[in-house]
């Protein structure tokens, strides 16, 4: 057990996870942030993606103690004031998802990607999301949601 302090969705959080506990399990079990989903536990499917210090991270491959002192954003942190983010809204408008299990990972990965690549085109977006697996949609609706979000963000800026 080690005491850690980190910022999660803008709030200071503390915990005492076992050294072997993954960040994903810490967020879900210790902080009750169950929006982050665990899809493969070996870093391939991307469902557990969260943003750590501005970068998308597979929270199943990172230990909770490695996140000590970091700033972590999870799916619960995107619409914290009750209003969907531009990306979330665009994904709703685009019928991006079906079962919703992969959704948090895609939303976090795409959020991180768009903040660095606001002008990305379809092929770039596909490549940026190719480390996230969705079994339901065939991806087109997800890509359309990201493209729509990028377009709306550009209109706003």
């Amino acid at each position, binding site marked *: 057990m080690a005491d850690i302090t980190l910022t999660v969705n803008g709030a200071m959080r503390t915990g005492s996870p076992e050294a072997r506990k993954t960040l994903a399990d810490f967020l879900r079990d210790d902080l009750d*942030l169950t*929006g982050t989903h665990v899809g493969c*536990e070996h870093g391939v*499917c991307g469902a557990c993606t969260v943003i750590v210090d501005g970068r998308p991270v597979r929270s199943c491959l990172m230990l909770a103690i490695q996140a000590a002192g970091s700033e972590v954003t999870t799916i619960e942190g995107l619409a914290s004031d009750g209003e969907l983010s531009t990306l979330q809204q665009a994904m709703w408008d685009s019928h991006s998802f079906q*079962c919703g299990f*992969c959704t948090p990972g895609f939303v976090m990965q795409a959020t991180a990607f768009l903040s660095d690549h606001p002008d990305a085109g379809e092929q770039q977006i*596909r490549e940026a999301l190719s480390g996230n697996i969705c079994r339901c949609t065939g991806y*087109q609706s997800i890509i359309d949601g990201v493209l729509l979000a990028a377009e709306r963000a550009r209109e706003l800026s």
Partner: protein
Amino acid sequence: MTAIAAERYTGASIKRSEDPRILTGAGRYVDDIKLPGMLHAAFVRSPMAHARVLSVDASAAQELPGVVAVLTGADLDAITVPAPDPLLALIGGAGPTAEFTLLATDKVRLVGDPVAIVIAESRYLAEDGCELVEVDYDDLPPVMSADFALDPSSPPLFANLGDNISRPHSRNEFGEVASTFANADRIMDFHIDVHRHQNVPMEGRGCVASYDADLGLMTFYAATQSVHLTRNGVATRLGMEPDKVRVLAGDIGGSFGLKIGASREEQAVAAASRHLGRPVKWVEDRGENLTVSGQAREESFDVQAAISNDGDLLGLDVKMVIDTGAYPGMGTMVPAIIEGMLPGPYKLAALGFESTGVITNKATYVAYRGPWASETFIRERILDLIAKDLGLDPVEIRLRNVAPRTDPPAMMITGRPLAGTTTKESLERVAELVDLPAFRRRQAAAREQGRYLGIGVATFIEAAPGPRSEGPGGALGMESMRLRLTEDGIVELFTGQMPHGQSHQTTLAQIAADEFGVPFEQVRVVVGDSDVVPFGLTGGSRSATMTGGVTLHGTRQLKAKVLDFAAHLMEVSAQDLVISDGNVWVRGDPASAITVSEVAGRAAAGQFGADVDADLEVEATFDGGQGGWSGGTHCAIVDVDAETGLVKVERYVAVEDCGALINPAVVEGQIRGGIAQGIGAVLLERSAYSEDGSFQSATFMDYLMPTACDIPRIEIEHLETVPLDADVNFRGVGEGGMIVAPPTLVNAIEDALSPFGVRIYEQHLPPARILELIAAADPGQ
């Protein structure tokens, strides 16, 4: 066409009411359940494919701090009773009944077979405990192929059966098989294999069982396609009355046929909770999911085709062997469905069909999106092979063989009427959309430059739910729904559908809102509680017709009841009342309007005489009406790199007919998702075993899933040509994409490789296999 109401949500891509919760992390999946005092389970699993269990020593595990209990197969056997698989119990399998225990006691039958369950304060500790359980095995020869399973000398997996046959050999004939073959111009033979692959929902199986000893009640949180089948599976195994088991389900992270009933692991978790008097959670990890949750499709076919020199497919004689894996499951039911569907939309006049199911030391066969899909694969594959032999175009040979739409409808030789099928239209439309002659010119030019482009078409029909008929396939079954107007004016639908991505909370609300005359937001669709919803199952692409239909008719019944009550309140005749936009008013007198909510509130609060029915609730059933077929034609254009074997899907076009669309975006999502799984099945996915029975694709680095870079944009056009029913012409589209994409893609790949003389008799074509096919081909063909 279906006429519902003037102002329509139905037919529009209404935004999903499920999305705000899933986009914000507020969905509630089974792994999100946390109960006071909850324990966590993990399973000790066999590393061997086939072995006797000599001893299980749990003492070291039991001493590990944090481990609460270890229950072996023998322990569980003592606290449970034998029970059939709930799906098999419902539909009935074909074949002998294998005898086995809930967890392995005498022997293990596949890698991953559960031997003991460890229950601990955390999942981490439960897995630590598993490491400490000592199991002594004595190797038996594994049965890893259908050929060996068919050999009487193969060691039987189940002692009481004496052999490895799960479905005894049978043969049926439809039409004049012998004379059709005797009189045919040509007879061609094919051996076609379909490889083992699997559902792989992003959320695996899982449950939380919570037994209340004081009340004798089990509350079981599940990820399931049917809360009632899960309830039955838990109750029968625990020897409880079904009404003492309540199954609750929230959001479900996909299934595609996997999560039906209650698995052995889920039953064991329920038994452990009752034994310990504490809630127990088990959620499988990806390794468990890939290894033991279930797999599908390992089938082989010897096909003989009787054809005319002009390209008429006159008769088929098919011998099928299906590998149903280790334990009883859906596999034994599949051959009969394949037999019935084999003629497809074609004029095929004679069919001989024989099948055998075999038991092997591999994962149990489970339903996977279009479990009978191989009928379409082999039919659409051999049509292309025949066309090549005769020098015909693939569209031409299909148009030549399609049964014309007549009145009365043509009958499939296996017994069902081809009512309302639009195969011809979809074939013609696909040919137009891709401009076949222009493609052939481009293909020829590309070949000059050493690029291998190919085009493939395939067509299918899907009984979603199938036409009304008296023949095999029979009645459409019934769908039930309870509907009520709540006291605050919400139209509430209680359905046994258990959506896991299908968007029923949106689509059924669209239909009800239109039919009742309230805003979409004023309809609530209640799912996932076996105590309050009627029996049902999401599966078989049944919900569009069956549940869409019961929603429409049930809402009509409820509305009539509400109007009768409102007529009493408003002192007018019910015939003079209309409901729109959530208001009830006297026709022609908008000033008379009162809200539906007010009517509901008055019904709930008021006291009325015996002549007034203020109970604004109905129970409705629907038998499917006239039913109908879904279907369509798909076309793929591929670019095959003959140096690397890589296949790029350049274009994919689907022309589909699922009747009237409830929500086009939902329909298209189903179609695209199915196609993506089909593309994955052909280019990437395979559940692989070594000869000694070890499982070789237990991670996502070995079982390759299609990604956003593998699946192209998919162009979809809808035909809505032939309404059969006065009211309900919505048809299912859940499975069609997965059924027809594999032959579409394989046909395209073979077309691309035709300069090499490649002929393809299989479904799994990763780059290495493409290169082997090129190397082995005879360019003279």
